[in-house]
């Protein structure tokens, strides 16, 4: 059996003992009568119940049954005082969640019957009998009321525990999502800068073999700049995770600057790129500019990997309700050295990043021997 209310406070025990002593005063200065025998028995049971440990679950129940029966048999003789004993037993049995409901019901109804049985043999006024029976009924109702309260308490405790669990799970999910974001950012940055470095170093190697040491210095300088940029980008990605408030300065200027940077890097790596911008630029929401910049970065990285010699076309179209970034590059039959270095995470990363924005669409597909990436961010207004 599940002991829900497992403890009985010392105050409750003390009050029970005091109650038993006060009720026992009914025996003082009265001529001996037969009802006193069950009455005294009932008092002993009451005292025993108040001092017994909670672990004596079954013995307590038996004593409470005895208490109720003794009270019922002595109530009429004691002119109604015995109803106190019945009420104590009924209250404790019905009020405890550790006991089945039928126990309290059975003892209450049984006591009502037993009191009536004693009236069959001892004449008693009807109104007196009625008040005693109502007293027992009130004790039953009181006990069930207390039981209901305890059920409600237990339920609200469970509810609170559940709420805490849900909050913990939410925090864990948020942490995982943040980790995913930063790993995506770091992947993009590393793929971009390390891929570029490989190309620069290939060029350095070729120049050294050809004996053109003068040009090597420029290449090495470019390679160093690329590494510095990559390092800064990686720092920014980690910093964005630490401070996840959308920065106020983010917007079209950031996008323009990022596009310029990426285009310059692409050209310095020997790529051919054609950039066109049309329409009136308008402000972008938090995260939108950086998402578009990352899409461009990843698309250029892919273009260098898969079609190093082909011309990349970048179109940034500003419309009043949205901004659309399209990157298209030819699909080359010759794969470059860095093509083998990818983990295949670039495209899904772009798609995830765009899906994280509320009003964004993203497509990437082959079309007429060209690979086309298109990302659109629709503004709310």
């Amino acid at each position, binding site marked *: 059996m599940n002991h829900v209310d497992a403890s009985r406070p010392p105050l409750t025990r003390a009050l029970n003992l005091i109650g038993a002593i006060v009720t026992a005063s009914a025996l003082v200065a009265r001529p001996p009568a037969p009802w006193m025998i069950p009455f005294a028995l009932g008092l002993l049971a009451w005292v025993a119940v108040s001092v017994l440990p909670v672990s004596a679950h079954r013995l307590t129940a038996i004593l409470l049954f005895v208490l109720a029966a003794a009270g019922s048999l002595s109530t009429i003789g004691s002119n109604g005082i015995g109803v106190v004993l019945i009420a104590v037993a009924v209250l404790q049995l019905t009020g405890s969640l550790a006991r089945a409901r*039928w126990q309290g019901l059975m003892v209450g109804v*049984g006591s009502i*019957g037993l009191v*009536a049985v004693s*009236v*069959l043999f001892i*004449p008693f*006024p*009807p109104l007196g*009998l009625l008040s005693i029976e109502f007293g027992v009924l009130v004790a039953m109702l009181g006990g069930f009321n207390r039981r209901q309260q305890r059920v409600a308490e237990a339920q609200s405790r469970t509810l609170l525990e559940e709420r805490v669990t849900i909050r913990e799970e939410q925090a864990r999910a948020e942490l995982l999502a943040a980790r995913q974001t930063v790993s995506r950012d770091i992947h993009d940055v590393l793929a971009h800068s390390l891929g570029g470095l490989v190309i620069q170093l290939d060029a350095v190697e070729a120049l050294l073999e050809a004996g053109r040491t003068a040009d090597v210095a420029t290449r090495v300088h470019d390679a160093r700049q690329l590494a510095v940029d990559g390092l800064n980008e990686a720092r920014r990605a980690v910093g964005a995770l630490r401070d996840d408030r959308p920065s106020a300065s983010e917007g079209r200027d950031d996008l323009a600057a990022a596009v310029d940077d990426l285009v310059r890097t692409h050209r310095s790596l020997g790529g051919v790129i054609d950039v066109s911008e049309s329409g009136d630029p308008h402000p972008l929401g938090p995260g939108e500019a950086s998402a578009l910049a990352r899409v461009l970065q990843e698309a250029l990285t892919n273009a260098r990997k898969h079609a190093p010699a082909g011309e990349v076309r970048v179109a940034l179209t500003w419309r009043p309700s949205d901004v659309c970034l399209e990157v298209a590059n030819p699909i080359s039959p010759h794969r470059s050295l860095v093509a083998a270095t990818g983990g295949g995470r670039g495209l899904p990363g772009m798609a995830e990043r765009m899906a994280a924005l509320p009003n964004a669409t993203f497509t990437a597909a082959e079309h007429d021997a060209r690979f086309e990436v298109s990302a659109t961010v629709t503004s709310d207004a």
Partner: protein
Amino acid sequence: MTLQSIANILIIVVLVGVLGFRQMKWRPVDVAKMWRMPIIMGVIGLVTISTQTKSSSLTGLDLAILVVEIVLSLAIGSVMGAIAHFRPLARAADQEGAEFESRTGWLGMGLWVGLIVIRVGIDLWAGSNGSAIGTSTGVILLVLAANRIARTAVFASRVAKLDSISV
């Protein structure tokens, strides 16, 4: 033999027959419907007692007999509810109404007859001790209602338990 006692005997015979026969057969358990008959019987019983009996002539003994009979009837009713057999009712899942059917069987019939015998015994004893309340139609209805109410209450809690298992 007065007209009143003939009417009482008729009511007892009809109710015992009908309820006893119904207990032997499998019947759908529709707790909401099962409350209806005992409540109607109880209300009619209370109204009959209050119109036929003057409260000033009611003695402590009358009241005690009434209480004892009702408590006994409640006890026997709950035992009937506890010994009844349940089985699931074949029906479509979206169909309204009873999910189980029940039968109390011969033991229930024995309890039923026992209740009547105890009642008649108490009435005879009460009559010889100067109390006439036991023979009034209202008390008979009240005692029967108490029996059915206790049985239905036990059924309701058993069905709730079965539901929580089968869900």
